[in-house]
């Protein structure tokens, strides 16, 4: 099995060379690692590489092909680029759902204020919506001049992280 995996700007080819039952021989680009990996809990991997111990934690993202992976309290955004993802990319569709026309909040919270109405014409940098979480308010702005197509939430609503809030175009 062979996959392309993306972390930030880096895309590496990861390939299973051998599964001995005790260890995995896996190639990342040109480097071969022989690791002892055990999933101690769903998505939590204890990996021994050259007897060095790592605890790596995989948190599912918006699809089964992107994760947030935490290791030593650092967060790595991971995208799996398989054949299907490559096909979609070649057709000009992203794999990550990172759509500039959808305003969303990366964190769950509560809608404090909606600053726009459907049909409003906005300039780049205009604030669209204010979300509050844990006593802190965050403003979400449009990145370019656009028009409000749809508003999917109301003031006072409790929202999930990455939930589409406002559609602009």
């Amino acid at each position, binding site marked *: 099995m062979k996959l392309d995996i993306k972390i930030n700007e880096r895309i590496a080819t990861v390939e299973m060379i051998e599964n001995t039952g005790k260890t995995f021989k896996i190639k990342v680009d040109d480097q071969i*690692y022989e690791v002892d990996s055990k999933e101690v809990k769903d998505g939590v991997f204890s990996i021994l590489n050259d007897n060095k111990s790592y*605890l*790596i934690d995989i*948190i599912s993202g918006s699809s*089964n092909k992107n994760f947030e992976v935490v290791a030593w309290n650092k967060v790595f955004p991971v995208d799996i680029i398989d054949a299907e993802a490559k096909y979609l990319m070649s057709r000009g569709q992203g794999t990550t759902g990172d759509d500039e026309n959808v305003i969303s909040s990366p*964190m*769950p919270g509560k809608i404090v204020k909606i600053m726009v109405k459907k049909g409003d014409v906005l300039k780049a940098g205009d604030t669209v919506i204010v979300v509050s979480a*844990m006593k802190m308010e*965050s403003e979400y702005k449009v990145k370019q001049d656009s028009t409000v197509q749809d508003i999917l939430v109301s003031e006072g609503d409790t929202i999930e992280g990455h939930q589409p809030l406002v559609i602009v175009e």
Partner: protein
Amino acid sequence: MINKILIANRGEIALRIMRSCREMGIKSVAVFSEADRKSKHVYYADEAYFIGPSPSNESYLKVDNIIEAAKKSGADAIHPGYGFLSENAAFPDRCKAEGIIFIGPTSEVISVMGDKISARKKMIDSGVLVVPGTKEDIKSDEDALRIVKMVGLPVMIKASAGGGGKGMRLVRHEKDIISGVRAAKSEALAAFGDDAVYVEKLVENPHHIEFQIVGDSHGNVVHLFERECSVQRRHQKVVEESPSPLMTPELREKMGTMAVTAAKAVNYVGAGTIEFLVDDELNYYFLEMNTRLQVEHPITEIVVGVDLVKAQIIVADGGYLPWNQQDLLQRGHAIETRIYAEDPFNNFMPSPGIIKHITEPLGPGIRHDGYIYAGYEIPIYYDPMISKLISWGSTRQEAIDRMKRALFNYKLSGVRTNIRYLHRIMESEDFASGNYNTGFIEKNADFLLADAENYKELEDLVMIASFLYFRKQTGNNDNQHKEECTQSNWNNYAKQIGVNRL
């Protein structure tokens, strides 16, 4: 006699208080909002009462609901913890009227010390050193100019009812005096419904050092030495330590005595904290008094070897302080770091969510005051602090080394945390040398957010883990099933037992 205490709080501090109750054989009563049914304090307590919807102004701040829960449960006393109702001046009187002991000072003390102008007056009258400035409200523009010139630029204009950095203006130049006063007044009016402001001389990049005090109802007050709280981000403490690296025995003696004087000036009963600003020349000034248990109280408990919550309960019940001043000594060094559910690498954005995995750090010299567990969802309604990590060492260096080790061992996922950021603070040269003041975070901003190491190997292993996880999820998993069957010793054992029985 206190036999049952209602804890009018949530999270780690509710648990902290319940632990002392349990040791004293006192029953504990939890209260919880809609969002908190699954919070650990609810199932740790002996009893728990629902007090309303998730937003705190409909539950934890609702005096009537809390009193009702106290009556239903038959609690003799209420411990307010910190935050929420702990410094609400009306609450102790209400408790008294209902025949319930409030574990904290009287309403009168809270209102005198809660209002900055009245606190300054009281302290000046008692001979406590305050930051040079005024003790009157500024009423007009002429007042403002005259007073500021008298105090001398640069100055801070502060709201009398203030807190949390609101209603505060720094004025460095004469031309900004009137606009500064006006801005502070309007902000104070909007935030606190009171536009009284006063002037204080600016102490540049001061140290923020506070003294723990406890008083009983028989006129005894002791101090339990200092805590250094200069590592602050936007007026929020991030790291605290005790003793302060700045302190000398002479200064400690003088400031401790002054803290006791300040507490005696208001006949203080309970645990409280006197906050001081200290400049680089070791001049010190009273800043304010916190009339409650502080978040950072554990470092004092560890260095002095006391239980402050037990002391609070004893004195609230009319008992004598468990110690004399000469019984109290500092031993070794303690550091506290506050773990927040926030992302320092994304402008400290709060990060509520479900805890997926947690490995709490343990081992020599480590205390962890927390309340979360794997599967717990951190609610969006309350403070982002999820736990406090406290290390103790026989020397400051050992306390730092232990804190670094504990932060490294603290594995928490599902939400973003500031753990790496805290580790960077421990690694910074200014912190290591103990040579820092409230300008620390700003001065070290780049260092604290930078990546310390080369992550190539870690990144590769992250890819490998992701690869294995994806492979499992998609069922492309050559012989995992077979692996599991042959590798389970329990299965082998069961088979053997089965055979033996025949």
